[in-house]
């Protein structure tokens, strides 16, 4: 890296990238890129523009509102059927790709990995799709009688052709007594997945939070909590649940990984809502606070430092019995995680990591890497807002590149300039960096491993990072007859 400091290198990379764009795009992108340091005042975490329109014509990694509603929030609710309403593609591309684990008999009482589509034809566009939707609802109930509700997830055309899916849902709910919930999450709405999360939260607020049936007969305890914003990717919510139960709490609901209708409906009976993915579920947490007086707190179960810190914070909401148990649990697991660190830190210490993910992970996973001695030198959000960037500031340990809605071109150039030892992002980016000979981990799907939440999961995380960085395969990139060159040069 020569004599330049990390910060200088990072700033230089931004300047060089912006030179490529036409003036209008350069002006726009400049607001989304920056550098921040733990000591920095009004650095990139405060200034970065976010949740804005993507510059047209680039390879953005962003998804859409439908992805945020059907793919993220609603899709994992396992005993309900989620209709991808519109043309065939959206439901197919989002089928069974997120690893939202669940227990159930698929196609009989649970439906997460299936794809239900109204498969629009030209006729439906011209004459409207409400009639087809009505028929589809009836067919679903006949063939899948154990479903506990149906959601209708709008694809782009629905909002453009003047269909009234809300009316259809209302009609069918009355007709059949099946919870039927329409979400107008057309992909062109908003600028990313983020609006879809919000719309999905709102639909839960309006349709499930108002259903008091299950709540009435539910017997509460003083230790009832709900896990909010954990999609059980690779089983994350299960490894979270275990720890919460071990400290003496009773988890009455998971939102929405491995979730069921009833769990969501009884959540207003919880004493505390534990919010992991702030971005996608802060809305419903705030609603439950206002409507039912349930406090909520953000926690972070990535890596032992953050898990321990979070458990202690959770315990402060409860009595001394819980607090004492929490310390026991921390002590029990810390012995194991210390061994994990002893085993893996020597192999990972000082390795530089660049992150690019969505939701909570661009900041939440920093602690887990730092526990292993790995150094985060760049991070950014696909669909974060200003409050996400502000929260990121607290996690910075050194000069860090901050990039919002970074596109394929920019990320590639950043990586070439900063030369990290590991890139952790998504499937679309994965092979680009592996081609350059760089270890890569998918941090959306845990690269088909996981879980990564909690103490046991940290052992898996450490093992996976070691596997990625220290695999012999990266050493084969150069043929023995080639001279040694800088990677990516």
């Amino acid at each position, binding site marked *: 890296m020569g004599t330049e400091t990390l910060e200088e290198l990072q700033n230089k990379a931004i300047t060089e990238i912006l030179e490529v764009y036409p003036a209008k795009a350069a002006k726009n992108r400049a607001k989304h890129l920056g550098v921040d340091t733990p000591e920095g005042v009004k650095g990139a975490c405060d200034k970065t523009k976010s949740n804005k329109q993507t*510059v*047209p*014509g680039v390879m953005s990694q962003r998804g859409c509102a439908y992805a945020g509603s059907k793919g993220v929030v609603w899709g994992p609710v396992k005993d309900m059927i989620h*209709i991808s309403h519109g*043309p065939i593609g959206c439901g197919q591309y989002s089928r069974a790709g997120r690893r939202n684990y669940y227990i159930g*008999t698929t196609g009989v009482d649970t439906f997460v990995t299936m794809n239900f589509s109204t498969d629009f034809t030209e006729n439906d566009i011209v004459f409207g799709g409400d009639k087809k939707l009505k028929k*589809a609802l009836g*067919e679903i109930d006949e063939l899948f009688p154990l479903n506990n509700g149906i959601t209708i997830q709008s694809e782009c055309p629905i909002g453009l052709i003047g269909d009234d899916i809300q009316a259809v849902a209302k009609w069918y709910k009355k007709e059949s007594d099946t919870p039927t919930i329409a979400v107008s999450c057309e992909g062109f709405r908003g600028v990313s997945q983020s609006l879809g999360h919000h719309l999905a939260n709102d639909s839960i607020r309006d349709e499930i939070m108002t259903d008091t049936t299950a709540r009435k007969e539910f017997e509460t305890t003083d230790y009832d909590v709900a896990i909010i914003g954990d999609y059980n990717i690779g089983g994350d919510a299960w490894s979270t649940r275990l720890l919460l139960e071990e400290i003496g709490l009773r988890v009455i609901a998971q939102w929405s990984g491995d979730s069921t209708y009833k769990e969501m409906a009884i959540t207003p009976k919880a004493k505390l809502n534990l919010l992991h993915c702030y971005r996608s579920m802060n809305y419903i947490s705030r609603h439950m606070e206002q409507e039912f007086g349930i406090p909520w707190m953000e926690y972070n179960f990535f890596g032992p430092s953050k898990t321990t810190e979070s458990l202690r914070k959770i315990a402060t909401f409860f009595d001394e019995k819980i607090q004492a148990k929490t310390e026991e649990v921390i002590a029990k697991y810390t012995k*194991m995680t210390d061994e994990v660190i002893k085993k893996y830190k020597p192999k990972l210490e000082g390795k530089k990591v660049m992150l690019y993910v969505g939701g909570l992970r661009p900041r939440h996973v920093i602690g887990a890497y730092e526990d292993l001695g790995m150094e985060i030198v760049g991070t950014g959000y696909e669909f974060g807002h200003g409050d996400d960037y502000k929260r990121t500031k607290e996690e910075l340990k050194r000069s860090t590149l901050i990039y919002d809605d970074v596109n394929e071109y920019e990320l590639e150039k950043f990586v070439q300039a900063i030369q990290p030892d590991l890139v952790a992002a998504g499937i*679309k980016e994965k092979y680009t960096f592996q081609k350059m000979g760089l270890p890569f981990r998918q941090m959306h799907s845990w690269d088909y491993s996981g879980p990564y939440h909690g103490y046991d999961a940290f052992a898996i995380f450490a093992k996976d990072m070691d596997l990625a960085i220290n695999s012999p395969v990266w050493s084969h990139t150069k043929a023995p007859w080639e001279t040694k060159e800088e990677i990516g040069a």
Partner: protein
Amino acid sequence: MQDVENIVNGQKLFLKPEYQQTLKNKTEFESATGATNPDKVDEIAEWTKTWDYREKNLAREAITVNPAKACQPLGAIMAGLGFENTMPYVHGSHGCVAYFRSYFTRHFKEPTPCVSDSMSESAAVFGGLANMKDGLRNCNAMYKPEHIAVSTTCMAEVIGDDLNAFVVGARENAEGELDDLPITYAHTPSFVGSHITGYDNMMKAMLEQLNPSRKDKVVDEERINIIPGFEPYLGSLAEIKEISSMFSDKIVMIGDHEKQWNTGAGEYHLYAGGTTLEDAKTAINAKTTISLQKYSTVQTAKTIKNKWKQGFETCNPIGLSGTDEFVMKLSELTGKDIPAKLATQRAQLVDAMQDSYPYMHGKKFAIYGDPDMLLGLVSFIVEMGGIPTHVLCHNAPRKGWAKDMQAIIDKSAWAEDCQIWVNKDLWHLRSLMFTEPVDFLIGNVYGKELYRDTGIPLIRIGFPIFDRHHLHRYSISGYKGALNLLTWITNGILDQLDEETKDIAKTDYFFDCVR
């Protein structure tokens, strides 16, 4: 708790007793019937296996469950990536492009370049011209393509954006930056047809827009074009090119995406391989164009036959007879004898078929996939003496396909036992497999849930395949490709035979070391 000496991931972690207890605790709060009334789940699960359920299932008119098709722009992107230094550009919202790129990347384990112009609410109201003006300029500045292939999402189609006018408008607005850049465009509405329709529309548009009009064509009597179609097997593209080169060096593949999704380690290149733009721009001059996927090139064929007045042929070089027809067609068109090398390959394939036939003979198959691939695969199954009991094509074209398939099935001694299912999905297939079971299922990754539910083993052939590695690198075309098919299917059958005979002191008398 984890044993640090033996750290396990979720697969085995959740089998530990403390996790099993946690999962059990959870059921108290659940509404899923498996938690509230497990017997009911068994009852309904059994019912889904019955003829009664099948009849209700097959009567579905409005809801599609577990489709075996995707939408138009996906195919348009594959078509675009068949040309050198070409950036596929999707006019519409970027969520679609994120999906397309993920989908291809999970199949090929390779990056997939494609941009969108990120249309949003304002574009829904005012149209997407502003997005295209900025988008084409930005795309050109950053990715420096030599050709941009524009397709559309359903959003742009519903609001009625006029691509021709938009491209003209964007050029005028670009201060000369786009002047020398070919920009082709096709309307690819997701609510019409499937991904193969999008391939067809984009291919047709590129050929029409890159080539001069018929009055300017200069016929090259020796030149032959080959359009591969929506081909997920990169090895097939290589194989077709190799076979072609044995006949003539003037056979040109139009839409050659082999290299784009098969680059080596060491350096990342945004663009790789592809038909040269020079070859694309002179496609009209060929004597004949051969399409290897008749039903992925229905519209493209019209351009070639009617506008260009060029010879147009279709071949389907999957399986023995399909390859025979293809090489004979090349021989006829080039006036060259079939090379000895190909005759040898054919003899080797037939020899292998004669070595392995007892295992496929009389076995019943359920098979689904894209229309042209199915024609080839079913033909091969029939050639081997297998029985294509259920042939299901979700995206079968309205005209001709079922008839073509019936003609292939009619060659089988068991033709009467075989059924063709047009425009049916994989939840239909589930009922068919329960009520009229088969020995093996052939299909893409989504077949694995059918395998789980019915116990009928899945042999993975098709698109997409996300959960097995590197199959897309092989050929399923030509004699060598047929040998791959033979190997996969035969060994799939033998794996199952081992599976069924491995019980110690019960069935393992048949667990033979020699088969």
